[in-house]
């Protein structure tokens, strides 16, 4: 009894984990990464290059493919501009103001991440479709259509990427020191000066990070766009939809080539976003020694 109460030596296994445990864990994680990410990436790279770089370039620059890529990039860029402005504004309102329904709104922001993108497309068609009230009114009054046209693509992308800027700006905004703004006010600075010179500088990096993330997310969007924009070559066909079409028509080389272009764009965006994140961590003021 006494020895039992005095303490079981087996329970004292604190300290460094055993070497095989460490290496075991590492190899599992690394193998998983290789199987799930690296191999598929390498395969598509190899598949696209199997006829050589010149053929790859030719496939990418085919008029339809080239147009699809351009359309993807400029609609995404439009979306990023709008999303950055409105996302920052939304984050600001969520952090700084009190209003009824704030908690609900705050929860809704993440919803686009959970809704199937096809559903997103359907929602927009129901809202703006040529047979629907708003769609036909727009057509009559301004002779513009949203569905089956680039504005529809931008709308769909805006919906999907809404959380990115908001969620990367919000935490930084929450931690801002209000005393700095009050100090600026005592020095005669009005609302706009305070926003541009005091509030915005620390938000620049989070805003850029959010913008890059939403851009990367938009490049590959398929589900909502295929519904909203249809599949009209040289009009509303984006890169992802083009790849889908090429796969269907068994032009694997064309599919792989445009895929590689998309991967390259997405990859460089992610790298840039990562770099900015690191920068923003380093840039934040540390404790004074």
């Amino acid at each position: 009894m006494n020895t039992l109460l005095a303490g079981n030596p087996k329970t004292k296994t604190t300290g460094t984990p055993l070497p095989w445990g460490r290496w075991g864990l590492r190899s599992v994680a690394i193998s998983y990464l290789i199987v799930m990410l690296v191999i598929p990436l390498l395969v598509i790279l190899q598949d696209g290059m199997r006829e050589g770089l010149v053929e790859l370039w030719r496939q990418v620059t085919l008029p339809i493919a080239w147009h699809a890529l351009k359309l993807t990039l400029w609609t995404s860029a439009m979306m990023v501009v709008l999303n950055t402005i409105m996302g920052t504004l939304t984050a600001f309102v969520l952090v700084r103001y009190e209003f009824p329904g704030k908690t609900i709104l705050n929860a809704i922001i993440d919803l686009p991440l959970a809704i199937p993108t096809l559903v997103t497309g359907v929602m927009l068609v129901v809202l703006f479709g040529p047979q629907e009230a708003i769609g036909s009114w727009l057509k009559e009054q301004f002779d513009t259509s949203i569905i089956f046209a680039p504005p529809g693509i931008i709308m769909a992308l805006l919906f999907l990427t809404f959380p990115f800027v908001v969620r990367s700006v919000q935490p930084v905004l929450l931690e801002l020191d209000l005393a700095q703004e009050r100090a600026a006010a005592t020095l005669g600075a009005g609302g706009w000066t305070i926003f541009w010179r005091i509030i915005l500088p620390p938000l620049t990096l989070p805003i850029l990070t959010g913008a890059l993330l939403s851009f990367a997310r938009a490049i590959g969007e398929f589900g909502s766009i295929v519904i909203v924009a249809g599949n009209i070559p040289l009009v509303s066909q984006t890169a992802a939809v083009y790849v889908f079409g090429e796969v269907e028509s068994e032009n694997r080389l064309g599919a792989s080539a445009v895929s590689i272009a998309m991967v390259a764009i997405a990859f460089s965006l992610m790298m840039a976003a990562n770099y900015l994140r690191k920068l923003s961590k380093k840039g934040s003021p540390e404790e004074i020694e």
Partner: protein
Amino acid sequence: MSIVLEGVSKRYEQQIVVNNLSLEIKDGEFFVLLGSSGSGKTTVLNIIAGLVSAEGGRVLLHGRDVTNLPTQARKVGFVFQNYALFEYMTVAENIEFGLQVQKVPKKERQLKRDELLELVGLVGLGDRMPRQLSGGQQQRVALARALALEPDVLLLDEPLGALDAKIRGELRRSLKAIQKQLGVAAILVTHDQEEAFDLADRIGVMSYGRLVEVGSPRDLYHRPQTEFVASFLGTANILVGQTEGKQIQIGPHRFELANEAARFSPDGRVQVVFRPEDLVLASSKTSLDCAPLGEGVVTNMGFNGPSERIRLELPAIPGVRAIAPVVPFGKQNMVIESSRTAEQAASLPLSVGEKAWVGIRRLHALSHPGMSFLVVTDGSLRSQSAISLGGYLARMAHARTVLLGVGDDENLLDAFLQDARKQIGSGMASIEVRTDRAPTRFAIARSIEQRPVDLVIVGWRPVEGMGLAEQTLQVGDHHLLLAAHPGARFEKALVCVASGEPGKDDVMFAGRLLRHLGASATLLNVSSSAPNTEYQHQQIERFMAGGVHSLEMFGVPTQIKLRNGNPQTEIVQEIKEGEFDLVVMGAPLPNKDGRFSLGGVIEGVMKDAGNCSLLIVRSHYHKNTINYY
């Protein structure tokens, strides 16, 4: 005048944080607002700067009414406790920010910036980022930035609070030197007494939103007017004695009063203060060169460099009550705190347990008598209100408080007393806990006999009768609060008076209490019928004007209400319409055998008044008055 505040108030969620505060600060004056945390001192700065809006009152800067101006237009320099430097700008850009906003040309701006860097002793550091500087340096930058626009006034919110002791001392000296050099009026907020004494031309002591006293450091230390300031600044011995003409009687000894044109209390009781260094210790009564207080035993000694602190216990002096230092309950002896220089110590070495004669070289009488409360609890639901409201009132009014627990189950008693102490919590001037196993009314009587108080607070619920209240009034000369609702904050009080009775004391005590709470009052007169003659009418008006005058003397905003009809129904009607949470009524006359009966108007009002608490005030002149309640 650089800064004038007139009757400024501010509430956060019902809680009063700045209570009807008025203040004038002269050109070039260094004013320090001193108070513990939560006393509202920072809010005062924010109100002056326009960072927080005041609810009532006016703010004038150099004669300009800025009450409704935004911060940007007020021309104040503000230094924050956490520096609040713009972290994405260099030191130079920080200092130039204000000038840039005002569109000052670049050349001029740079000139001014260099001048300021030199003033605060940071030449050559203009290109650094704030985070590359030490705390002390950052606060120097913040000071330079605040001075860049040559503000009308400089507001400093605990600027030295976040720094360590050595840098604090250094920065304190430069701060004072810079302020004098520029001649700008400054208000500094701090909880550090030493800092206040060191920097201030004048100090304002704040507590619970009120400016308790204002004066030079010397005046506040040697001639405080209130018990709160006397014990808040430094160590104070406080006794209650009797005035005899121009002398003060403390037991058998009489002391000459050098100062005082004080407004002593009508019954001749007066609180006297003497500092540790005002005492003389000697080996015999005859070798004292000043008035003797008694022979005491050394219980505690401490050494702090230039002087020596000695705590002595003296036998109680009949008729004299010691207030500070607090005597443990049950002990009759008096505790006195003294200090002496190394020279004095050398001539009469003392150690713990030895005896010495204590003489008083100098003493000072407080001109504002402090209040004392007795809060009664028996662990029941109704005493919850007494504890909650009693604690709140005692904190706000700095009243010395006795918490009396009654009940015959000792364990239960201990448990709820501990709970009550926790609830009443910190921020009390002094609190003493007693227990008594006798029935409540005897326990109250016994406590009052030992230690008379100004106000007894008991819990009360509408289902109960007036028995305990009647008995409580019988055992002493105190006022009585029947606390009905634990959450009440007494923002609106209804003071019921009847014309014909002097009622001055009733109104005066209500005023003394209400001013601490930031409450407003409505003075209600109910006549049985509308006044017939012009004479009657004038009489009522004159009487009410007197009441308003008394209340407003205490800074309690007061309005008048006249009603005709049955007193009970009219008062209840008024309570409901005005949503009052406190009603003040005069105590009725006692019977021939000294008993009180609260049946009639008071009982009737309380039955119908819902959660309204009742303050029953006693008139010291009641023997000559006719009171129809």
